[in-house]
């Protein structure tokens, strides 16, 4: 041990590298709109020193206000994983067992599959004011919140019926981790992805078993379940890689969780995800940049769009891939919005006590979007989409969807045959 004497500074989530410079507090969307959140520095590295001393210093109510947007981590010049310090503390010290509301919000796949079965009823019901009132008071989900609609047919069902059979004819293949959103709420995104991948010569398979990545489980306090599901996902991915299929997704939060957080937050071996899991936009961009794949677009495609950087995209550092890909479409007039939080942060904004904060955080973004006067807002995150669509007049699309719209499939297939 003496040979390593003070050569390296090692502390969990780089806790000790904090120089107390306070830069993180500038970029915290929550601290800016409410005085009741102590800010990332104080909730994170400052508070952690006290929590190590005694759990009595764990202030659950205050720490719950953290969005886990990770903008503090992106801003930190010293690489302190501030949001992870806060998340780890919540995992470690939270005393209150999650209630019905947390269960509803966390179990996106379970609740999702039930809801899909009865989508027309579910959508009707969640939109109905008496039901909203119940959600508001009993389940404490804010009544002003528009619930995401559930699709009548899951993406998986569609895939099995309409796409699965054709995928083997492609020489190259990927596995698609569709996530709960594409599966239950917006199967069109999954369909768009299959369309684009097929056009560039890739077959799309599903993983043997896909479970919710765990983001909503962790933020709502279901840690053990998140771990179990994570293990299943990683096992499926290992199998996929063994069969020569890298894994792509269309969700930034799922990607960040599985690729960057499984290991230190949930202690799951996620090397397979670190090496083989990518956002679809990144996967495609790299193929195009290397010349392996060519894209052809409809000549008459014209759209004015703006791109919103989801917080977890900012943390991944992959914005460049999605924006570069969208910018390749000749008919697209592209506007880059300031990178700022929309306020929803997954299930955060659904909670009654967070609604006001959530909307206040998003306000500058909403204003910018309305002023941009665009046909579509492009973003890589499903919950940002809900929030923006609820709070502005804009229609939001994933970059893959706009690619699917603009892509001249016939020509693209032709180009990539050579």
């Amino acid at each position: 041990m003496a040979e390593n004497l003070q050569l390296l500074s090692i502390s969990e989530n780089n806790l000790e590298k904090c120089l107390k410079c306070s830069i993180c507090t500038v970029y915290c969307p929550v601290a800016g709109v409410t005085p009741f959140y102590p800010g990332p520095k104080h909730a994170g590295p400052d508070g952690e020193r006290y929590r190590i001393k005694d759990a009595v210093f764990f202030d659950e109510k205050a720490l719950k206000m953290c969005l886990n947007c990770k903008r503090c981590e992106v801003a930190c010049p010293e690489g302190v994983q501030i949001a992870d310090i806060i998340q780890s503390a919540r995992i470690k010290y939270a005393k209150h067992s999650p209630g019905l509301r947390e269960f509803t919000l966390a179990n996106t796949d379970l609740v999702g599959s039930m809801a899909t079965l009865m989508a027309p009823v579910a959508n009707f019901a969640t939109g109905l004011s008496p039901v909203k009132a119940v959600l508001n008071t009993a389940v404490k989900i804010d009544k002003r919140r528009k619930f995401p609609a559930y699709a009548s047919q899951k993406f998986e069902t569609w895939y099995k019926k309409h796409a699965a059979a054709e995928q083997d004819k492609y020489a190259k293949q990927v596995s698609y981790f569709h996530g709960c959103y594409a599966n239950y709420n917006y199967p069109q995104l999954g369909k768009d992805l299959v369309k684009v991948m097929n056009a560039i010569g890739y077959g799309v398979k599903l993983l043997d078993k896909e479970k919710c990545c765990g983001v909503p489980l962790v933020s709502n306090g279901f840690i053990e379940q998140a771990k179990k599901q994570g293990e299943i996902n990683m096992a499926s991915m290992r199998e996929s890689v063994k069969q020569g299929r890298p894994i792509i997704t269309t969700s930034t939060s799922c990607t960040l969780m599985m690729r960057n957080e499984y290991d230190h937050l949930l202690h799951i071996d996620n090397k397979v995800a670190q090496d083989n899991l990518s956002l679809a936009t990144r996967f495609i961009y790299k193929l195009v940049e290397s010349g392996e794949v060519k894209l052809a677009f409809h000549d008459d495609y014209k759209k004015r769009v703006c791109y919103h950087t989801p917080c977890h995209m900012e943390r991944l550092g992959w914005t460049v891939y999605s924006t570069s890909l969208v910018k390749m479409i000749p008919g697209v007039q592209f506007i880059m919005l300031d990178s700022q939080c929309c306020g929803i942060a997954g299930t955060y904004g659904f909670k009654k006590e967070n609604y006001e904060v959530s909307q206040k955080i998003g306000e500058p973004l909403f204003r910018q979007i309305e002023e941009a006067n665009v046909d579509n807002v492009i973003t890589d995150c499903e919950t940002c989409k809900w929030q923006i669509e609820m709070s502005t007049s804009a229609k939001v699309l994933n970059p893959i969807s706009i690619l699917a719209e603009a892509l001249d499939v016939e020509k693209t297939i032709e180009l990539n045959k050579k």
Partner: protein
Amino acid sequence: MNANIAKKHYDVIIIGGGATGVGTARDCAMRGLSTLLVERYDFTTGATGRNHGLLHSGARYAVTDKESATECIEENMILRKVARHCVEEHDGLFITLPEDDLAYQAKFVESCLAAGIRADIIDPEEAKRLEPSVNPTLIGAVRVPDGSIDPFRLTIANVTDAKLHGADILTYHEVTELIIENGRVLGVKLRDNKTGEMSEARAEITVNAAGIWGTLIAKMAGVTVNMFPAKGSLLVFGHRVNNMVINRCRKPANADILVPGDVITVIGTTSDRVPIETVDDMRVTPEEVEVLLTEGAQLAPALATTRILRAYAGVRPLVASDNDPSGRSISRGIVCLDHETRDGLAGFVTITGGKLMTYRLMAEIATDMVCKKLNVDKKCETATTPLPGAETSPIEEPKSHVYAFNARVGRHGTYASKVVSKDEIDNALVCQCEEVTVGEIKYAVENQHVSTLTQLRRRTRVGMGTCQGELCALRAAGVLCETCKKSVSESAADLADFMNERWKGMYPVGWGSTLSEAQLMSNIYQGLCGLDNFSK
């Protein structure tokens, strides 16, 4: 100095604002003596403020010095009751490593039990479970009732109580001379170290409780008390690495105690004899840092890769009895000298030796002697009367969502509610690392003899955290300037001194994040703000 003090004729004057001095002042005052305490600088500026903060179980001395061990465990149990807000009761481990002799463990446990110290041999696996940071190669472990104690809080609680019992306290008053007439000490001549003003104070008995500086006080009285200045250096780590005290189960040596205290961990100490002339300016050398790190990493390997906030050194006030250059075979035994019987000098008592753990007992012994001389027949009650702040237990239910409340309870115990908290400005945090509020600064100024940043640090921990004052020092200077009605130039000079004092602890460990922190600090204070060495 207050004119009343010069006019008064005290029963007793106590020289020295360390734990022993303030403890003696409290005891004397509680027994109804009119009492004056004089301290040349601030409280806790000697060995009291420069040690591990270890609530010794006495186990460390059990094999070599049964008397000290017994004193320790008795005082340990007393302090848990009377100073509970200054104490953390987390127990300690004495670990045996493969290179140590496991046979020592049996002897150790036997000696502990003989001294009345609970000592349970536990399985090394159990030790690892209890204290995950412990060196995993350990082959033996004994659990003992060690803990930690905050000497700053302890001292100030004694000061508070002494004052409640009518004692007068003068800080920044240095004894320049003893007033001696006809073989009797009649009092002291004092210099106000802030103004330079000279004065006198008189009493029946003068007690020399000046720690290592007691040798110089004795010299003023024309008597000889040979002291043995043994320098001990320590390192402060950035966060709490361990939650139990970790010791080596072997003959006491360098850097073999690792103490968690508040939000940090301290490793210490080295031990080297130093000349008495140097004790006012102790610096930690690179060699000492090396020893502390190497040995510390033996106790808890994580120390090798943990950020170090600062280094400091104190001087043990041991009474010399032989020429052992390490100072370790000397008993930490209490020495109370009646100079009337010893040297034919009446009205003068020296209380020395001992250790932080036995400060109360030392105070009791000295006060007993004073009372005897004054024919006062009142029993000591400090072993049973709680210090201010420690009256009830649990002190107060922790409150969620009230910033700094729990930290405040930790520092003030039941007195937490006395901290000024009337509006949101009082509740604002000045120091975020240590959760010090504006109200706490106001409270310290009003009640705890505070007018400088360094004094404030000793009372509240302001600037003691990770950043060592990077932003909070200027905020605190602003609040102090306003609360103490100080001039801006005085405040700026105080700030300049404070930052240099912080640096004194940082530069011996100036690498890694601590060097980066130092650069940021310099850029803020010297670059952005233009702070310079105004006091020079």
